[in-house]
């Protein structure tokens, strides 16, 4: 695979960064993930950290070659991250369970698959146009859908930060999956938290991405987004990937990686004691181990 990828997470005008971003890829599969820990709740940072760590961990466990079922992987790993957050809260006797949004995207076989919970967004931009996007699980989005308010009014609405699906909540997250899209050369997938997307409209972003590489464009655009918030900027984070000409030998190719090797980059702080998988979770490794145990028991018991 040949693609250009950029990611950054900025503090904005806040004291702490509760956003976590990450990507990881092997020869044939790419994962991008972003999580926005919720400020109103204790340790939103921890929730976002667990989400990115857990999803990345499972990705590296299951995507040794390609993912057989990308949507199932996305949904089950977001659910697993939710359970891991809840377990963390139980283990640490937290009064309130930390919460986070999450959007994750898989690219393989030239196609993109994504799933999300909350109001962190994913855009697919093609030739300057927004061809696909996640629908926020937010109160204002519901009001827009119902025709009660305009998107412009939503940006100023007092409830604009209220979301109805997240990881770590009392109820398991509502997870929406996007349709899978075949990527064309120049297509750019952008994942961002609300600190960024509230300030930079998708059409502007689309127009700019068309002219400039994400590597050149986004650092300045993050600064611009923070500036526009006029001293009240939330944390702002972006992961963006442009799908390149797969035959362009001048560009790096993920085939250069060793078999089953992953290149990974995240802003997680690794301060958690351990991002242990939730107790009732069954991973591929568990399955292999169980089968090995049964087979060994079969061999041991005299027949």
């Amino acid at each position: 695979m040949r693609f250009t990828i950029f990611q950054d997470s900025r503090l904005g005008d806040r004291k702490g960064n509760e956003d976590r971003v990450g990507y990881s890829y092997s020869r044939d599969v790419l994962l991008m993930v972003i999580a926005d820990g919720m400020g109103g709740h204790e340790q939103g940072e921890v929730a976002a950290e667990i989400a990115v760590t857990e999803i990345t961990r499972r990705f590296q466990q299951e995507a040794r070659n390609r993912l057989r079922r990308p949507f199932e992987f996305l949904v089950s790993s977001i659910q697993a991250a939710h359970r891991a957050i809840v377990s963390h809260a139980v283990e640490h006797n937290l009064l309130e369970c930390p919460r986070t949004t999450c959007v994750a995207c898989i690219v393989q076989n030239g196609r993109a698959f994504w799933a999300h919970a909350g109001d962190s967004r994913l855009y697919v931009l093609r030739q300057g146009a927004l061809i696909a996007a996640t629908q926020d699980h937010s109160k204002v989005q519901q009001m827009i859908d119902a025709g009660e308010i305009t998107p412009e009014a939503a940006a100023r609405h007092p409830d604009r930060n209220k979301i109805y699906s997240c990881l770590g909540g009392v109820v398991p997250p509502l997870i929406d999956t996007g349709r899978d899209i075949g990527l064309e050369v120049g297509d750019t997938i952008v994942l961002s938290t609300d600190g960024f997307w509230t300030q930079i409209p998708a059409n502007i972003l689309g127009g700019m991405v068309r002219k400039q590489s994400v590597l050149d464009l986004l650092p300045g655009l993050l600064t611009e987004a923070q500036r526009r918030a006029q001293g009240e900027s939330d944390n702002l984070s972006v992961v963006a990937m442009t799908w390149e000409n797969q035959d362009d030998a001048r560009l790096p190719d993920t085939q250069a990686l060793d078999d089953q090797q992953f290149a990974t980059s995240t802003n997680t702080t690794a301060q958690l004691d351990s991002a242990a998988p939730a107790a009732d979770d069954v991973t591929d490794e568990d399955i292999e181990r169980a089968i090995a145990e049964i087979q060994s028991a079969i061999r041991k018991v005299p027949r």
Partner: protein
Amino acid sequence: MPQQANQPLPAGYVLNGYRIEKPLSSGGFSIVYLARDESGTPFAIKEYLPSSLALRSDGVEVSIADEANLSVFRHGLKCFFEEGRALAMISHPNVVRVENFFRANETCYMVMQYVRGRTLQFHIQRHRHEFTEPFIRRIFIHLMNGLREVHASKLLHLDIKPANIFISMEGRPVLLDFGAARITLSEEAMKLKPMYTAGFAAPEHYRFKPGELGPWSDIYSVGATIYTCIAGTPPQAGDQREEKDHMIPLRTLARQDYSDDLYQLVDDCLAVDYMKRPQTAYELQRRLMSEPGVEKRGFLETINRPLSKLFSR
């Protein structure tokens, strides 16, 4: 997605070296196939396929009907492993033997010894007149050996019924289908509906409070199975009996003479209150052995009791 029946693997399909001949049975959690290995030895292969979660409408690979069910599917897989693990540790002539266990087609398979014979259900339908007291006692005394072994492995069968008891050609009863065998406490597992067969499942089984289930729940099912051997039909369902007990007294349904002791034993096993049942397979086995099973005992036979006890083993 509409609920569809799961398609079995096609005949002739080669699964990890075993050639599928035909499906033998299918239940809520699985399909069992007759298959042969390269040398032609027959096996019964059980495929984990919970119909409420997984789907195979065509081809051989299993897909999950609803993506959100993947983790539940996998959790059920864990139960399937528990069954495999427990069975792998049991080597007993009255419990079906596990020969192999592997993963394929996005699900898992358990290869079991294929027992030639017929289910107890078949015999009840065709040959109920042959179910004399000594025959019943002999079958169930042997079966209790197997069930004791199962309980000793900290496993409950939870679906004992005539269809799950095989009588081999030599007349040996073999306990089959541990598909319901599990005890799980987690909320996720509750989504996998407890499997029960009306008439054979104990009243507490319907509530599925794991704390109430125990060897006595299997004892209830054994009682219901003996009842069916004699009556030809199972007793009133456990959950209904709990509301209003209309179970027909076994004596009125019997077509031949059985001892008061056997009627009492079946009645005790079928107690709605699980505390009033024989609590273990061993206890039930002892009671099955304690009476010779002769219709009317004269004075001399009473004297011979210890001797008869030996014979009935």
